[in-house]
């Protein structure tokens, strides 16, 4: 079966599992719709009745503050009922399988699942298993994908740089363990960014990453040249199995974004980070809090983008 599991038979978005293989029209529709939702935040009543009477279940099998909270705010702004499941103390820890959990929650009349799981492919499995009227949003699965993060990053880039077609974007750091980087690369190339660079030591790059259409740099001072957008990635201590790095101090020395390294990029380059940041490991505080940083606007835009994704899915 070749059909994209995210799309229904009319080619509309049924689930959001990954940015890989999504047509540019759907990506732009999400970004455009998010623009309209961004205005809602400035109103007296910050609610829209679109998802009234719908139940959104936040299923986080892996810890998260920012993503879970912004999904919750987004769903509440759309007037949905939001149920947060604390998986650590729930049935799964008593031995229930993922699909049994999903079946039970479906029996409680869930309309949408927002799921984060440490296993790559967990959201895909749920999507292929749920009733056809239920929508699944992947909020991060293992090393595979984190599509809403990538979409809010695209929204941020478009807000500051207006157009994707003349940009050079650098993704710096732990690409190997990063589902965010994978989703960003697919979204950036689909949206027409002509040059995407990955900057990392060999030990933190997936093998054959160049097949995704990116340029590889091991030296950040070379990689920063003519860059418009810098995306820093968190060094994922919890996913490091072996000794990929001598020490975090040495990593900072070679790959940590300092003001000095930042001056090698274009003067109006923006600095992004999906969070949570490790100050002094991948990014210096002076840069994280500096004039070129758009790290906090990213968080704010995340609400509008997640509202857009939920309202498009629930309407299809």
């Amino acid at each position, binding site marked *: 079966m070749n059909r994209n599991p995210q799309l229904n038979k009319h080619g509309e978005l049924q689930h959001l599992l990954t940015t890989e293989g999504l047509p540019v029209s759907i990506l732009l*529709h999400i970004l455009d719709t998010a623009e309209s939702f961004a205005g809602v935040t400035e109103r007296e*009543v910050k609610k829209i009745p679109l998802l009234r009477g719908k139940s959104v279940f936040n299923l986080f099998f892996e810890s998260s503050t920012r993503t879970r909270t912004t999904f919750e705010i987004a769903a509440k702004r759309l007037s949905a009922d939001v149920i947060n499941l604390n998986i650590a103390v729930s049935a799964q820890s008593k031995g229930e399988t993922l699909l049994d959990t999903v079946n039970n929650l479906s029996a409680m009349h869930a309309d949408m699942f927002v799921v984060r799981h440490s296993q790559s492919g967990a959201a895909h499995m749920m999507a292929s298993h749920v009733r056809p009227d239920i929508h699944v949003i992947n909020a991060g699965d293992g090393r595979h994908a984190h599509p809403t993060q990538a979409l809010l990053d695209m929204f941020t880039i478009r807000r500051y740089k207006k157009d994707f077609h003349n940009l050079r974007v650098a993704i710096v750091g732990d690409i190997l363990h990063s589902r965010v980087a994978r989703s960003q690369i697919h979204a950036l190339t689909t949206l027409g960014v002509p040059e995407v660079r990955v900057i990392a030591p060999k030990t933190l790059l997936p093998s054959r990453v160049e097949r995704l259409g990116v340029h590889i740099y091991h030296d950040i001072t070379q990689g920063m040249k003519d860059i418009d957008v810098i995306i820093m990635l968190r060094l994922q201590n919890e996913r490091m199995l072996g000794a990929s790095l001598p020490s975090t101090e040495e990593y900072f020395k070679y790959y940590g974004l300092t003001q000095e390294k930042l001056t090698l990029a274009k003067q109006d380059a923006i600095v992004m980070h999906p969070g949570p940041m490790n100050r002094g490991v991948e990014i210096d505080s002076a840069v994280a809090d500096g004039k070129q940083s758009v790290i906090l606007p990213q968080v704010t835009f995340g609400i509008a983008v997640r509202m857009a994704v939920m309202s498009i899915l629930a309407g299809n």
Partner: protein
Amino acid sequence: MQLPDAEKLLADLTEQLRPVVDERIAMIGIHTGGAWVAKRLHQALGCSIPLGVLDISFYRDDYSKIGLHPQVRPSDLPFEIEGSHIILVDDVLYTGRTIRAAVNEIFDYGRPASIHLATLIDRGGRELPIAAQYTGVVLSLPADKMLELKQDTDGKLSLSLRDIRFPEK
């Protein structure tokens, strides 16, 4: 069927509104046709409060049936809604559902002192208790016809009628 001249209807509507519009009156057009009409009225009547535009996609009652409109645009209400006197403008008044959605959205910005409705055409067929205070013309049209306002590149407005059973060319 001979359709009325949209420019003439607009001129009539402008004259109806002239006695009631003063510097306290705010005007809001509903995207897309209503916004065109509102822009022309706003200009002709020399309103001082900047023009507002509403996209009611997020408030439509047929969302659960037809999903989200593919081209949602941001609503822009560049004045304080609380306590304001509003003339809401749309091109065609039909079932009244669009107006219901627009009024709901306006109230999410604040509590206006009053809202009056001005439409270029009232084509009957109401499904909700909604009426326009100012209308260019009242027409009776069969339910299988869709009346559309169009704007050409010079900004000139015109009306067209099409069969809803056949998609637009």
